Every structure is written in C-alpha cells, then in structure tokens.
C-alpha cells in the first residue's frame, strides 16, 4: 500500500525533534474517538494543523472550505463537535488529517466506535478520497468486514510482528493460522471415510459452474460443508469446503488443478478445530 517502501525504512528514533515534526506532517491520522477539540468549532479544528505550520489566513480558509465540502460538512463549519454525530465528527477528523496534504492517511480503529451505517458512509468517503487524491490509506482495525470493504492489501500483526501479509483476497482464501486465530474458528463435522477439501474461488471463477461440472465429469458424490462468498469493494471470492469420499480425493484434486483452481486437502480433524 505504501507507495515507496524505501522511503519508510528510515529509523524514526534517529530523527531530531524537528525532523520528526516534518516526518509526521506527511502522515495524516484519524482516531477511534475522533480526538477533536471540544471548545473549537469544526472550522477551527480543521485549520489547527495549518496554524501550527504557519499557513496564511486565505490559504487556510480555502483549504478548510474545500476539505469540508469534500467530507460533506460545508453546512457545519461553525458547529461545535458536541452538536455532531459520531460519523460527522469522524468526517471532521478526516478533513483535519488531510489539511497538510499527507502522503499517507493512518486510520487508527477509525470506525470502531461507529454504527454499521456510519461505518459504511465513512468507508465510502475514505475510498473516494483514496481514488480522488491518490493517497495511501493504512487502516488499523479488528473489523474483518471493514478490511474486505475497503482494503486492497492486508497484514496481520500479532505480538508486534507482521505474521501474514498479502492481498485481501489471497489472505482470506488461504485462511492462515493467524487469521483463524483472529476471527475465531468454526468446527466442521466430517463423517468417517470422507476427506475434506478446501476449494478457493477467486473473482474470475465466481460465475463458473465448476461444481456442476465436477459432479458430471468425475462423478464424485460430494457434500458442501461450508461455503461463503465474500464481497469486497471490487471483488468477490470465497472458500468452499467439500466432503468427498476418501478414495475419490485424488480425482477431485486433479479436477481442480486442471481448471487452475486452488483445491487443497483440509487436514485439521474436526475435533482439533473445535477445541482450539
């Protein structure tokens, strides 16, 4: 997501106070609890960063007006934060974060205190900003739906380390351990003599009739144990878990391999999965 990763490899602790201030100027940030000054109006909140950097009055005015109309709050310029809804407060936060024309917008659990409708409208706004201003957005969240809705790439961080990273589609399709730990795991019941396989359906296969074809071509009696199609901002994808007779397993794997689809045996025994 970061446009030029090499730029980011500087060690922050080695920067002087002043250099650090300039570095921070390039990163806009929005917060879970909005972090607005309650005693200042929407307008005053938005111009605050520019005041700190000594912008001229007319320039501050122009930028603030432009950003407030971008986030849809042009009629709330003189309101105080207490008069605004959570979603509106976050819009003020977004406008404030964009005033210094940052290269990255860092969203720290920015929708975690909002209801689903508000979350959706904030995410739409962020996506719009991402496309309009060509700005990288880094979204820290524990809400999986938010990731699917807005993100292109994702990384899972546990105990201070990046465990998994990749495109949203690939991470959700591969279901790495770290992801399962995060979302909680579903136990899967499987009968004796059956093998469990995971078929990953990518966006390009979504309209295919592979199950019908599998039944017809290799005549394997299968059961669908679980299937879910995720919908992200641009793509649809999902995993289908099939139970097939153990002695047909190879046939099934070859069938999907021929079709260039990912199909792997799912080895976790149901007992193990449900205990964890």
């Amino acid at each position, binding site marked *: 997501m970061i446009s030029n990763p090499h730029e980011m490899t500087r060690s922050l602790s080695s920067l002087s*106070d002043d250099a650090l201030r300039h570095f921070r100027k390039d990163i806009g940030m929005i917060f879970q609890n909005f972090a607005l000054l309650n005693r200042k109006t929407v307008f005053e909140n938005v111009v605050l960063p520019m005041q700190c950097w000594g912008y001229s009055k007319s320039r501050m005015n122009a930028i603030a007006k432009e950003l407030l109309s971008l986030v849809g709050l042009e009629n709330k310029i003189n309101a105080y934060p207490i008069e605004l809804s959570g979603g509106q407060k976050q819009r003020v936060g977004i406008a404030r974060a964009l005033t210094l024309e940052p290269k990255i917008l860092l969203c720290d659990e920015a929708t975690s205190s909002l209801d689903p409708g508000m979350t959706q409208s904030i995410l739409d706004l962020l996506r719009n900003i991402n496309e309009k201003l060509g700005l990288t957005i880094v979204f820290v969240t524990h809400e999986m739906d938010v990731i699917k809705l807005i993100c292109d790439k994702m990384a899972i961080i546990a105990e201070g380390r990046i465990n998994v990273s990749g495109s949203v589609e690939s991470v959700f399709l591969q279901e790495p351990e770290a992801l399962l730990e995060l979302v909680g795991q579903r136990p899967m019941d499987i009968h004796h003599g059956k093998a469990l396989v995971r078929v990953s359906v990518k966006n390009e296969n979504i309209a295919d009739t592979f199950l019908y074809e599998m039944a017809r071509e290799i005549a394997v009696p299968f059961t669908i144990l679980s299937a879910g199609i995720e919908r992200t901002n641009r793509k649809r994808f999902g995993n289908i878990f099939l139970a097939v007779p153990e002695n047909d397993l190879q046939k099934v794997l070859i069938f999907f391999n021929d079709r260039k689809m990912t199909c792997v045996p799912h080895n976790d025994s149901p007992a193990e999965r449900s205990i964890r």
Partner: protein
Amino acid sequence: MIHLDFETTRLFEYMPKIILPAVSATVRMLLFSMILGLIIGTLVAIVLVLTSPHGLKPNPRVYKVLGFIVNMIRAFPVIILIVAISPLTRAIVGTSIGEKAAIVPLTLSAFPVIARYIEASILEVDPNLILAARSFGASDRQIIFRVLFPEAMHSIVSGLTTTSILFLGATTLAGAVGAGGLGAVALTYGYQWFDDVMMYAIVLILFVMVLVIQGGGEFIYRKQKEKGGTFK
C-alpha cells in the same frame, strides 16, 4: 447576642474617608496578587505539565523538585508567610509593612494554588488530543497553547474563581499585620472600638465582593463552557 448600636456607630462618618479607601486597597491587593500569582502559577503549571511522568518532556527530577517546593509553600498559612518572609518582602518592595508589602506574601502563597489548579485542569484534557496534535506535527509549545490551554480554560476559570475568593479572605488577614484594607478597618475600628455595626458592615461589603467574584467567574465559565455546547 449581637447588639447593633446604630446611635453611636461611626460607620457613616468613616464611610468616605476610611472604608471606601479600604475597599479599594483590598481590591488592589487582591487584584495584583492574583495577577502576579496567575503569571507565576501559569509558568509553574506549564513546567509541571511538561515534566510530569506522562508529560510532553518527562523529567522526573525537575517535576519532583518543583512539586516539592509548591507543596511546601502551600503548607504555610498565609499569616505565617507574611511574617516569615518579611526580609524578602523588604528586599523586593523596600518595606515590610503596608499594602505593597502584603502583595509579596499573598502572591507567594497564591501561585502554588493556581499552579495546581491549572495543572489539574490540563490533566483532565483528553490525552488523545495530544496524540492528534503530535500526529500533524505540532510542537510542544503549540500543543500547550493551542490545544491544552483552550481545552482546559473553562476548568481553569472555575479554579481561579475559587482561588480569588480564598485570597479575598487572605487579604483581610494581611490587614491584621499592617497591610491596611478592609480587614484592618474591621479589626481596628470595628472590633477593637466595640463598633459592631462597623464590623458587620465590612463583613457585608466582603460578602458582596464574594458574590461579585463568584458571579463574574461563573459568567466567564459559562461562556467558555457554552463553546462546548454542553450548557444548551
């Protein structure tokens, strides 16, 4: 039993030449000691806020030493402070008695109170605001003056109101040791001359002054608070 003898009181006779000048002396003492106390108190509060363990520039040594000094001065009753620092007072204003001299100990005992009030008010400000201000590259100075003080102002104002009323009492105390003002008049012309009318009249004047300070403080407080919209 309070017996008010309006026949023999010199209240009306003394009103223009003694009481009114005493009112203005008290107001002057209070005003100057509060202004000076506010200036010094603000500076001390800024250092305390900056150097506190969770502050912008944590420095345990400075924080502890300054906190210790502030607490120590607060432990001195005003009347003791007035006599205890008389050499210092003489060095600063040239005399250790009178109105000017009273301002020194009053200021000295007011600034720690004010500093603590300001410090407490600032500590109440949502720490996320500091995080937000840092995120757009605000300097420590900008964080203090553009974020912390504006957000804490209503609470500081209410603290200052309480302090002013507290120190109105202290100025009358200073009157007892030669500073003049309403305290001295109530004591000398009222209490010692057995003129109860005079004494209670001065208490009444002080009461009105308390009301004025409290009313003024509340007015400014509400103005500040209204900005946040919570009073609507």
